[in-house]
């Protein structure tokens, strides 16, 4: 009988999981939707996400309508009546095209969700490997530092950092980020999410390093770096993949919350969260400005969560990684919200 690699077996299990595949399909559709932003903006809506159309009029089905009427109410969805302009209406008193902003905003939301999680995963992997491999003082120093971050109400820490950095930007040595850079929410979310990943990774390293293959590597003369990155890291791969997927879902929600409160993505950039923040002010007159970006977040996060669970089932059918990703075992810890 032919041997199969565990990765191939996992792939086969994933392929049979129709719900996970449907979720992946939904995610790809959302990705294509946001990637098509420039196309829609140029060819259909003939505008840009930040172009102001307050004083303009738009022709829909032979009827001329003001983009923003004198009472300050933006025009509602015109669908294709105006040739695709203001497909979802205008976004408020500035009269920007909601559909174009939705597509560009999604890029920002997804970019932050992915980059922040990538950053947190890299940091957590290095910290978890160091703490789990060296143990002793290294472990104590790393673990206690993470404990302190943990003792913060996460949202509160992220809001404080978001506020401070949005006002003043960030300056580390020669590196300077302005307050409106989207790198700021990426760094903040990556930073506050790191302990949630580093804990369980450290726990896994602690148990992995007692196994024979590590002993064998050491006997062959492998140094600490070789053992950590050549032997231990590959054994963490399936955990990391699942953590990554569930982390993206979690961090997109955190980004949305921060941006909604005005301490995440700063103008001129917009994300789905900050669009809800803007729409919320007009919720009684134009509720769709709140409903639609939120529904996009829900669909995206849902697709990532369902696919992430499918990945977990495929990679390790017996594991309880969802629990760990949220609870951060071996010692159970709270939910990162």
């Amino acid at each position, binding site marked *: 009988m032919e041997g199969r690699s565990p990765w191939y077996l996992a792939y086969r299990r994933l392929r049979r999981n129709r719900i996970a595949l449907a979720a992946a399909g939904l995610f790809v559709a959302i990705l294509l939707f946001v990637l098509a932003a420039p196309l829609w903006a140029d060819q259909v809506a003939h505008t840009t996400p930040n172009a102001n159309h307050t004083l303009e009029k738009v022709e829909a089905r032979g009827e001329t309508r003001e983009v923003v009427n004198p009472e300050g109410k933006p025009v509602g969805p015109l669908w294709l009546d105006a040739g695709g302009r203001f497909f979802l209406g205008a976004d408020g008193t500035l009269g920007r095209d909601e559909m174009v902003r939705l597509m560009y905003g999604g890029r920002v939301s997804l970019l932050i969700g992915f980059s922040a999680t990538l950053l947190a995963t890299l940091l957590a992997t290095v910290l978890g490997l160091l703490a789990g491999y060296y143990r002793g003082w290294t472990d104590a120093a790393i673990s206690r530092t993470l404990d302190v971050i943990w003792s913060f109400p996460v949202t509160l820490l992220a809001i404080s950092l978001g506020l401070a950095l949005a*006002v*003043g930007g960030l300056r580390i040595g020669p590196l300077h980020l302005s307050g409106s850079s989207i790198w700021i929410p990426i760094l903040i979310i990556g930073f506050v999410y790191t302990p949630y990943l580093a804990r369980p990774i450290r726990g896994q390293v602690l148990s992995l390093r007692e196994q024979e293959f590590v002993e064998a590597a050491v006997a062959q003369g492998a140094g600490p770096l070789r053992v950590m990155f050549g032997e231990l890291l590959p054994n963490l791969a399936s955990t990391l993949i699942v953590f990554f997927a569930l982390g993206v879902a979690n961090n997109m929600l955190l980004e949305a919350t921060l941006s909604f409160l005005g301490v995440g993505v700063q103008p001129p950039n917009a994300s789905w969260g900050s669009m809800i923040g803007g729409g919320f002010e007009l919720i009684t007159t134009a*509720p769709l400005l*709140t409903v639609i970006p939120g529904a996009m977040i829900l669909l995206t996060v849902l697709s990532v969560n369902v696919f992430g669970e499918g990945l977990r089932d495929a990679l390790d059918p017996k594991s309880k990684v969802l629990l760990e990703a949220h609870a951060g075992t071996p010692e159970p*810890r709270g939910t990162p919200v």
Partner: protein
Amino acid sequence: MSRFVIRRIVGTVLVLFAVSVIVFTIFNVIPDSNPAQSMAGKNATPTLVASIEKEWGFNDPLPQQYVTMMRKVFTGDLISYEGREDVDERILEGIPATFSLCIGAAVIWMFFAILFGYLSARKPGGLLDRVLTVVSVTGISIPEFWLAAVFLNYLAYKLGLFPSGGYVPLTEDPLQWAYHLILPWTTLSILYIGLYSRVLRSNMLDVLGEDYVRTARAKGLSPGQVMTRHVLRNSLAPIVTLFGLDFGALLGGAIVVEYIFNLNGIGLYTFESLINQDLPPVIAVVLFGAFFIVLFNALVDLFYAFLDPRVKLGSSPQ
């Protein structure tokens, strides 16, 4: 036991110290913030700004400013920059609304999480399990503040089924108290219902494979008795642990919900202070929140030792 308590107290003090230093630092590195300037107003004369700086000690070295502020936190003399209010008093005023919100939401989420988890695990893969899985995963994926906004618009403004916000004290009118809190409770608990019912379901499925479950069945207990007395009971410990930790950290979630439903609690106060870059209330609230997190961490450890005598208090885990 005494060793455990001493360790925990020392740990708590260290953590609170670190947390307060971090917040203090975050606010003092904001380059364009000048509390004296903003307190004096836009058209303030330099003399006025200078006198405020002197009065509040903004020119003192940072460590000294930190010590002064911390002393005020604990003596109750802390005054906010914005409006010069007594911070500890404002926090105490916010406690009824915030605690009502958090405790009520916690009761709701534990009830539904256990109900959903139990129903799911009874027939894994069945129709009910699949429906509840969809409900739970959706619950985990909903942006909380968005749900709050949607509820507010459709159920409160449009249909008028619920009040649009505000807090009625429990002592004044218990019915109105609950009526005003239904939407906030629901929004705050949905995420946890989704998460906890998933965790409980998976724990119960694990426990179902244990030998003692087979024994219980073999000695003739009905399936219902086996599920409640043996499986459910033994699956609850991790949920209760998770609950302790999440409940301690609930203040974060309360910020958004209190903001949208205009509940005059600690969360709303925190958010307003943050937006005004008003450091004293923020420091006090963060300490307050961190204290609860640390406290519930310790309670969880005690609870664990109580449930499982093999866990020794005082020795560090692992």
